[in-house]
């Protein structure tokens, strides 16, 4: 053990028996918030958890009200929504920073926070998926439900059926209950969220040796840019990441197990590794990388490769991921390599000044969107500034207290690495790579920041200041992270289904999808990206879009080139969808009703791009809803 380092975490084998804070339980809860009326009867301590449950529910309701007003196209103040988020989170943050709660209560609070923030995503678009990846995975799940087998082709993201963990698991719930893939998927991802929060808590508790640090670190993780929306969608990473954290937790627990009991961990660990591998490519590689890093850190600390050094498991993970890649999911290479090589090229180009850096808070799809307000940008930058300021203090504390812990060392490296991903956000093609990586690296940053111990700062005149400051900082980090991770104009839900004279009407692209499902079952469509996704699910059709094959050019050019009809024929695309809306290629915003204001601002599409198919002899125009039309090219493809 390195001199001066703290000893290993508690070896009780049970986190429930772990002290909430080494300094002990000191005093009743600070009554910083005045409670009156009905709440006057609430007993401090005993009723704190119910009070936090109430505030979480109330905050969620406030978010739902803000969403409802936005769906009504009333342009509500975003403050309602952010107030709702803060009402959910701040009381929990404050409670977690106290010395009072038991480890069990902290675990409950962390789960409450994770599940309530997940509910914020659920109420964003219930009862339909509207995130672009969700529609792709819902199609895969529906294919499994229809055919009772895996690996059916996905026309938009061909690699996804080869990582069927999420959709396969969804099929279990859906087939046994008769629920839709939406309902089953929401329940499944909710369960995964519970595993994520619980695993983080126990992992941090084991490494940090304190339930208080563990609770704060797990709460801090909710401030990562992707936690609120991207990481909560019905997508393979939403299941794979919790399973990765479960694996990490198992390794952390295994580390303190007596040698004779080490074998007990093998089956659960191998099961979790295999599940990650069949669920998501990047997460399985991240797991392998993490295990290699922990093995090396273990060697660095203990100077030995013997068990419990997890290097054999790192090898197993690498082997399983490689076998899956080579035997089942060979197309992953073709999918990931352009993304990664493009990211590297973009970094070089931006660093050498050959291409300008990416403008922050702008749409990558190129569509004109509502600008992020200055105040929101300021909070976002403030959040990054807080992370940056906290890092050196956290690293210092980690080195001082936890450098005998391999996991803590890896967390420290990951925390530094997180700031590298921020730099990637400044180059356009590398943005996505940085965004994905940040979700993994933030685990380390959360622990490092929680280790700063800000909550223990108690100036004599204002002993509450440390906790108040920490609570405020966490609030800024949560809101700033959410603003950084999801476009400002998409934070609130948009009108997809609208009540009109007591009946429900649906948006034009959803109307197209519902028509196709009823009238053209089994049809094959070439369509703009947003329409294509809805045609997949809930439409249940085969739809292609984008650049490969080059549907985008076929739909956007004003005249038909010689290669276009043969390409459609090659892919058996009998139906072509034209869409005059500017947002038809926007996979984040292209699913909703237009409003009078947006229509007034929209530049009309060039007429020939949407009418050129009418000039093909034998082609017929079989559907229209105004902006969107469908041409049947039977016999002329």
């Amino acid at each position, binding site marked *: 053990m390195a001199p001066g380092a703290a000893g290993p975490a508690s070896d009780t084998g049970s986190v429930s028996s772990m002290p909430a804070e080494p300094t002990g339980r000191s005093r009743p809860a600070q009554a910083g918030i005045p409670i009156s009326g009905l709440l006057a009867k*609430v007993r401090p301590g005993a009723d704190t958890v119910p009070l936090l449950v109430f505030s979480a529910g109330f905050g969620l309701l406030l978010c739902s009200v803000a969403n409802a007003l936005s769906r009504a196209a009333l342009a509500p103040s975003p403050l309602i929504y952010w107030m709702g988020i803060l009402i959910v989170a701040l009381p929990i943050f404050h409670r977690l920073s106290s010395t009072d709660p038991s480890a069990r209560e902290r675990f409950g609070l962390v789960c409450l926070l994770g599940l309530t923030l997940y509910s914020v995503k659920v109420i964003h678009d219930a009862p339909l998926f509207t995130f672009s990846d969700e529609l792709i995975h819902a199609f895969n799940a529906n294919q499994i439900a229809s055919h009772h087998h895996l690996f059916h082709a996905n026309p938009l993201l061909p690699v996804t059926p080869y990582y069927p963990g999420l959709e396969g698991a969804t099929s279990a719930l859906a087939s046994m209950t008769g629920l839709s893939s939406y309902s089953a998927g929401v329940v499944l991802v909710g369960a995964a969220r519970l595993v994520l929060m619980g695993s983080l808590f126990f992992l941090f508790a084991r490494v940090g040796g304190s339930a208080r640090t563990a609770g704060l670190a797990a709460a801090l993780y909710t401030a990562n840019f992707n936690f609120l929306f991207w990481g909560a969608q019905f997508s393979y990473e939403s299941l794979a990441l919790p399973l990765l954290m479960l694996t990490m937790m198992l390794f952390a627990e295994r580390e303190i197990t007596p040698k004779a009991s080490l074998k007990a961990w093998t089956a659960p660990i191998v099961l979790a590794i295999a599940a990650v591998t069949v669920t998501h490519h990047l997460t399985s590689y991240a797991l392998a990388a993490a295990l290699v890093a922990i093995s090396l850190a273990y060697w660095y600390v203990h100077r030995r490769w013997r068990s419990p050094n997890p290097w054999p498991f790192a090898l197993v993970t690498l082997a399983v991921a490689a076998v899956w890649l080579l035997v089942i999911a060979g197309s992953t290479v073709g999918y990931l390599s352009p993304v990664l090589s493009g990211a590297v090229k973009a970094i070089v180009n931006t660093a050498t000044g050959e291409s300008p850096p990416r403008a922050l808070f702008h749409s990558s799809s190129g569509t004109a969107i509502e600008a992020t307000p200055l105040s929101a940008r300021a909070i976002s930058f403030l959040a990054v500034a807080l992370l940056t300021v906290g890092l050196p203090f956290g690293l210092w504390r980690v080195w001082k207290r936890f450098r005998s812990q391999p996991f803590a060392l890896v967390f420290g490296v990951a925390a530094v690495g997180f700031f590298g991903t921020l730099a990637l956000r400044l180059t356009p093609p590398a943005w996505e790579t940085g965004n994905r990586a940040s979700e993994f690296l933030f685990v380390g940053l959360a622990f490092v920041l929680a280790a700063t111990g800000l909550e223990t700062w108690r100036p004599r005149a204002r002993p509450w200041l440390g906790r108040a400051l920490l609570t405020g900082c966490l609030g800024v980090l949560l809101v700033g992270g959410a603003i950084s991770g999801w476009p400002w104009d998409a934070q609130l839900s948009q009108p997809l289904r609208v009540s009109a004279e007591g009946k429900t009407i649906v948006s034009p692209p959803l109307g197209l999808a519902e028509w196709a499902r009823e009238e053209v079952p089994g049809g094959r469509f070439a369509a703009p990206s947003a329409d294509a996704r809805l045609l997949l699910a809930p439409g249940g059709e085969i739809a292609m879009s984008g650049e490969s094959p080059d549907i985008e050019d076929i739909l956007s050019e004003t005249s038909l080139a010689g290669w276009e009809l043969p390409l459609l024929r090659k892919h058996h695309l009998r139906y072509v969808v034209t869409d005059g809306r500017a947002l038809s290629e926007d996979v984040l915003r292209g699913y909703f009703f237009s409003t009078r204001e947006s229509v007034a601002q929209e530049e009309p599409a060039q007429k020939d791009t949407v009418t050129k198919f009418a000039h093909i002899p034998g082609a017929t125009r079989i559907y229209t809803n105004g902006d969107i039309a469908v041409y049947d090219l039977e016999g002329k493809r």
Partner: protein
Amino acid sequence: MRGHRDLRRAVAASVLCAAVALILPFPAICLVFAVPLCLFLPGYAIASAAFAHRPLARMQTLVLSVGLSLAVLALGALLLNYLPGGLRAGTWALLLVLVVFSGCRAAALRRPKPSGASRSTWPRLQVSKSGGVLLGGGALAAIAALLLAMTPVPAKNAVGYTELWLSTRSNARSGVVRVGVRSEEQHEVGYFLRVRLDGEKPKLRLFNLVPGETRMFRVRTAPPSGAPVPVVASLFRQDEPKSVYRRLTGLVPPPGKSR
């Protein structure tokens, strides 16, 4: 599994949940039974077997049970894919019950007797009256939030529209043109539909639709003997009768050829 009440209960619960989820036709009730079977019991059985000699804390067992159950579902799908029957309700139920039974059996064999774990109970939540009111209030608020999210709200600024579609087919006796009109407008709208088949007198229809209402029309004609017969469907709004609101074209195929 004598002496291991938790394991006996887990097996019994898995059988009960599987049976109810398979038999009942009500998705919401099935979900109540399918969730423990899919998302808790398999993981609990595996965790019990793995840690038979060194039981984990209850909270860890909870996380591990849900997490390992998710892993079982992800890998179980792969297994079922290569077995006869594939991924169906019955095969899933059978697999999960088998996993639970095998795990519990292994746990029972490995556990020292009598098992401390089987005697221990899950922690009870002690809540005062005011705490209960707050918990209930929080749960109600969350349910209200979900219901509000699922309820379509009026959006007067949303631009409504009308769908028009057309399909054609023929048999030996006649050619048939089907024209559908669906209103996704914000209020009731009066329409005027004109269907013109090549060489025939136009067929006209006058009708109103309320939001969300669909009207289907069929126009019959003699089956084309040679080339397909062109058909044009034009929709007008009664408040703007001079401009075509929607227009579609089709071809009525000769018998035996579909469009």
